[in-house]
């Protein structure tokens, strides 16, 4: 441990909780926001349903400074670590009230529409809908459903909740809302914390929140074996489910938020969340927008980062199959040294990535689309907020009726996300025609030996992988009848 880091010890975690400023000089890296609220502060309105970020009963809002403004997003308190709230405003259900001190319009609409039965999921729904109400005063049904992908209700069948969400929008009142009224004050308080490092311990466990990315590089040089925590949508479960120690932990989710579009490439900071990348991808690759919105629920998309999704090396990965197909590269940094590699080369084997100790993913570089034809597909038992059984990205270039380049990558088919060389070979140099894709659909069976598990059998995975090539052709060739399910509600 270097002196420079030692000198930085015991700088408290500072954040706002509802109306209160919190200063924590002692905390463990695995302390969750949920336990802090319920056990530490007696704020029991926020519930624990699953402790893994899938049910949304623990939904709270986290406000943070972003692009000079203050944004509030719903997140899962059960897998959000307290240390990562340094410089944030944590808002729990107890803070919510109407302008007159009574029920908030979202709460009133929930009562009016009989939208609670057992009531246990209800505070989480209210918080997710509160976040939606602030940003989308007049949401569509699809926007409501998308906002609620991270909230499970077992009683109501959701119909009254959706109706309440639509009605709350009609009730209005955003300008008079407490979080709007307090905005300037909160912003000032958060600015005072912004850019500071936090470094706290409990016993021999330690959590460091670097001040900036250079600080992150320094901390990791000094603690090369540290657990890097970004959105914690995976590391959170190491703690809550596997009871695995993560100390020392270095928090990076608030860093590397840059997003720049250059002539040839889109450069995305590793700390950019799914929610932040979705509109950018929608602009540049409109074909994949719905794919990104099928990753996690809203809370997960607000927390999970692109860098974390890559660095944790999942065999499924959600984003990596698409990114590999798009020819993405990543910049790895250690200290001040950087190297850029093709993303597909980062995944060496199941559980093994090309990342040295002390090194971290800093930037993801995606070549722009140009004339390529792009698609992303996945199958899962449930359409939304379910990890893929099979995921795939396609990037096919056609010139003069002939396929001149093809990159097709899969997740869920092997120990790592990876390309399908036989299928690509069956495409390249061939006419852009149904028979070619039929050939690739057959060829892909030779590229992978998938496993059978609880998500899908090997047979199903193989069948779907082949059918994705058929779908790609059908989508490209057009026709009278739809080739995809229309999940949107007509409005």
């Amino acid at each position, binding site marked *: 441990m270097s002196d420079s880091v030692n000198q930085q010890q015991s700088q408290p975690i500072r954040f706002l909780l509802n109306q209160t400023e919190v200063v924590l000089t002692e905390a463990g890296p695995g302390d969750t926001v949920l336990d802090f609220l319920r056990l530490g502060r007696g704020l029991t309105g926020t519930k624990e349903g699953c402790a893994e970020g899938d049910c949304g009963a623990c939904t709270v809002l986290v406000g943070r400074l972003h692009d000079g403004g203050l944004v509030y997003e719903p997140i899962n308190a059960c897998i959000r670590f307290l240390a990562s709230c340094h410089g944030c405003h944590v808002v729990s259900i107890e803070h919510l009230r109407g302008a007159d001190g009574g029920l908030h319009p979202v709460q009133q609409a929930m009562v009016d529409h009989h939208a609670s039965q057992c009531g246990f999921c209800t505070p989480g729904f209210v918080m997710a809908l509160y976040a939606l109400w602030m940003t989308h005063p007049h949401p569509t049904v699809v926007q409501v459903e998308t906002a609620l992908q991270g909230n499970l209700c077992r009683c109501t069948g959701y119909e009254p909740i959706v109706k309440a969400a639509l009605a709350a929008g009609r009730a209005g009142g955003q300008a008079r809302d407490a979080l709007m009224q307090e905005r300037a004050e909160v912003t000032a308080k958060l600015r005072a914390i912004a850019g500071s490092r936090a470094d706290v311990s409990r016993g021999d466990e330690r959590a460091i929140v670097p001040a900036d990315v250079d600080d992150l590089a320094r901390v990791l040089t000094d603690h090369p074996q540290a657990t890097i925590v970004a959105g914690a949508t995976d590391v959170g479960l190491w703690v809550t489910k596997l009871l695995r120690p993560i100390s020392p932990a270095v928090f990076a989710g608030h860093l590397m938020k840059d997003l720049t579009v250059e002539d040839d490439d889109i450069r995305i900071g590793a700390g950019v969340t799914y929610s932040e990348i979705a509109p950018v991808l929608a602009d540049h690759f409109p074909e994949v927008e719905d794919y990104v919105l099928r990753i996690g629920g809203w809370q997960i998309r607000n927390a999970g980062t692109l860098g974390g999704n890559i660095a944790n090396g999942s065999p499924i990965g959600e984003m990596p199959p698409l990114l590999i197909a798009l020819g993405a590269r990543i910049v790895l940094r250690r200290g001040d040294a950087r190297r850029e590699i093709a993303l597909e080369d980062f995944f060496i084997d199941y559980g093994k990535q090309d990342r040295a100790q002390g090194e971290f993913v800093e930037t993801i570089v995606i070549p722009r689309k140009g004339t390529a034809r792009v698609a992303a597909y996945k199958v899962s038992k449930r359409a939304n907020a379910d990890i893929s059984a099979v995921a795939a990205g396609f990037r096919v270039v056609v010139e003069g009726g002939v396929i001149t380049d093809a990159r097709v990558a899969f997740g869920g088919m092997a120990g790592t996300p990876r390309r399908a060389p036989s299928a690509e070979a069956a495409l390249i140099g061939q006419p852009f025609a149904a028979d070619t894709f039929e050939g690739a659909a057959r060829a892909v069976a030779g590229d992978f030996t998938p496993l059978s598990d609880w998500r899908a059998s090997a047979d199903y995975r193989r069948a779907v992988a082949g059918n994705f090539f058929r779908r790609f052709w059908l989508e490209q060739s057009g*026709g009278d009848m739809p080739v995809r*399910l229309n999940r949107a509600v007509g409005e």
Partner: protein
Amino acid sequence: MKHDHDITAATPTLAETLAETPHESATKHVTGRADYTDDLVLPEGALHAYLGLSTVAHGRIRSMDLDAVRVAPGVIDVLTAADIPGHNDVSPVQKEDDPIFAESEVMFHGQPIFAVVAETRDQARRAAVLAKVDYEDLPLVLDPLSARDAGSFVQPGMTLRRGEPEAALAAAPRRIDGRMVIGGQDHFYLEGQIALAIPGEDDEVTIFTSTQHPTEVQHMVAHALGVPAHAVVVNVRRMGGGFGGKETQMNLFCCVAAIAAKKWHRAVKLRPDRDDDMIATGKRHDFVTDYAVGFDHQGKILAVTGDWYARCGFSADLSMAVTDRALFHADNAYFYPDVQVRSHPLRTNTVSNTAFRGFGGPQGVIVAERIIEEIAYATGQDTLAVRKANFYTHGQLTPYHQPVEDMILPQLIGELEGSCDYAARRRAVLDWNARADASGGVIRRGIALTPVKFGISFTATHFNQAGALVHIYSDGSIMLNHGGTEMGQGLHTKIVQVVAEAFNVGVEQVRITKTTTEKVPNTSATAASSGTDLNGMAALDACNQIKARLVAFLCETKDAEPGEIEFLRDHVRVRDEVIAFSKVVQTAYLARVQLSAAGFYATPKIHWNRAAGRGRPFYYFAYGAACAEVSVDTLTGEYVIERADVLHDVGRSINPAIDKGQVEGAFVQGTGWLTSEELWWDDKGRLRTHAPSTYKIPLASDRPKVFNVALADWSVNAERTIKRSKAVGEPPFMLGISVFEAIGHAVASVAGYRECPRLGAPATPERVLMAVERLRAGTAA
């Protein structure tokens, strides 16, 4: 005495003003101020317990090394079977096969074998995984058919028989034999299992928990502690969902907390993590059913035989009653002229399956609907036409020899067919699929309209009783308690309405507090959809006793006749004199009139002889129907529900908003059972879908894109139930079958509807795609 209305009369009442009463806790729900057990402020010095679970599905414990557990930080104690002062058993049917802690042999992966008691929950949980247990592996029996072949039963099965089905099958012009695989289901109540035990004086202990059956918890805790039932008080303010999963499953958690609390004389809370909750507690039974149906060329059913093989898990629990109920619903709404159906409750090395909304009924109904599909595809007809041809007519006998006397499905189905435009939409679906056939379209459509008829009453007749306690305080405010528990179904709201209406006061004047064994004894589980039927009548009985005393008092003091007294809103009229209700109460108090009453109710008419397979197990039937239309992606097997229309019978609804909520919620939950919710065990008997990351219940975006739900507002219960309403908790669960069959219809289109798609449940995208491929290849299921 003149009532302003007879609450059991089939006439509209001024209670209509109460009909949209919101859930009694709605404001608390939305503000986070509704307290669940885990939210209660703990007494000073409270401890936390955590269960240690077996890591093999079947094995003999050679040795158990708990040293590392005992010395872990914060650990106070480790409890094993040896620490149980009374009986090591929580079998709800007194089979002595459901240990709190396994002693020598573990029977499923995840079975509790010990508990850690520590200063914090986190410490207890971390310590619990440090145990070193050495097992001798024993042979595994994991699925129902293996258990059948091994002759491994938890309890004897039942046979329902009428007529000569073998001869009728042999004589039938057509016959189909088939097998259906029906998956189980996790309850996924949002609030998990939880118990808080607070020790009292002498042998007393008070439990705060989240159970549907406080009385059973009381007895189990007394049994485990070796104390009389009067030493144990069990309190339930509300549950965060139950669905049957907290009917018997909470017993073990409460016993462990109570044992620890009494041993250390400190409050002890026990709350498993979601994964452990899903691994260690029972679920809906999965079944394999072999059926045979004989029918004529028009599709009229002549005979049915069937065998229901159920995976019950390692112990009996409620499996006998669950598998019985599967047979009670093996007919759904159809008359089987000659019939034999048999249940086989099989013992397996898996968690002991338990009650779940419908209680086996759905696994009976879905086979009846499969039989309809078989006939329809075999005869080239619309499934709805086959259904209508086989509905019960008045007075026909069920397989258990109870006549069906309140059949309203023809009217209900007729209305739904019209309101959802079934015929035209079915033609459009067929047209769509024909165009897909012609053009290589990959999206197929399917539509189905399916009914449900569901028998209401506990089939164990003695459970059909209830008690209530009503106090009027001298200021006129009313305290209400009854034996039912609130799990979100709106029971407390409805009973408050009943009491408010009885006295003709506002609902705000009636306070309902926690369900507690101290106030109403010997209650039945809040289950079998019976909560309102039973407790509503008991509460009404209590109200009527007090009202009778008030009337007698007024007659005496005002020299009036009972017919001259009327309960007006917040007032009582005696001839021309109108007195405030609170004034009447106060005066009665001063005159030493008892203002408290215990009410009671026992369901009339019902009886059941299981050995003979005859009787009247059900007081009445509840009915409903749904029409679902789906789109299916034949490249992946994924689907969306384009539209669902529901018309459901709740008799005369006490609270249409609450009843509609039950119907909508049940529809989506039933759809989840048959679509995305898959319990997946590996070959070592380990459940691998034990958290919401792997076990997928429906989301908002999975509900029907268009969802029209209506109550049959003309329906009146033919029996004298509370306000002539009908039970609503379970029956609409089976409306989800419409989605399942619609998916099958879309699948069948790839082979020209010539073959029954024989989808297995749940119809995950994988099963759908594989069915598509199978039908295209023309291979048998």
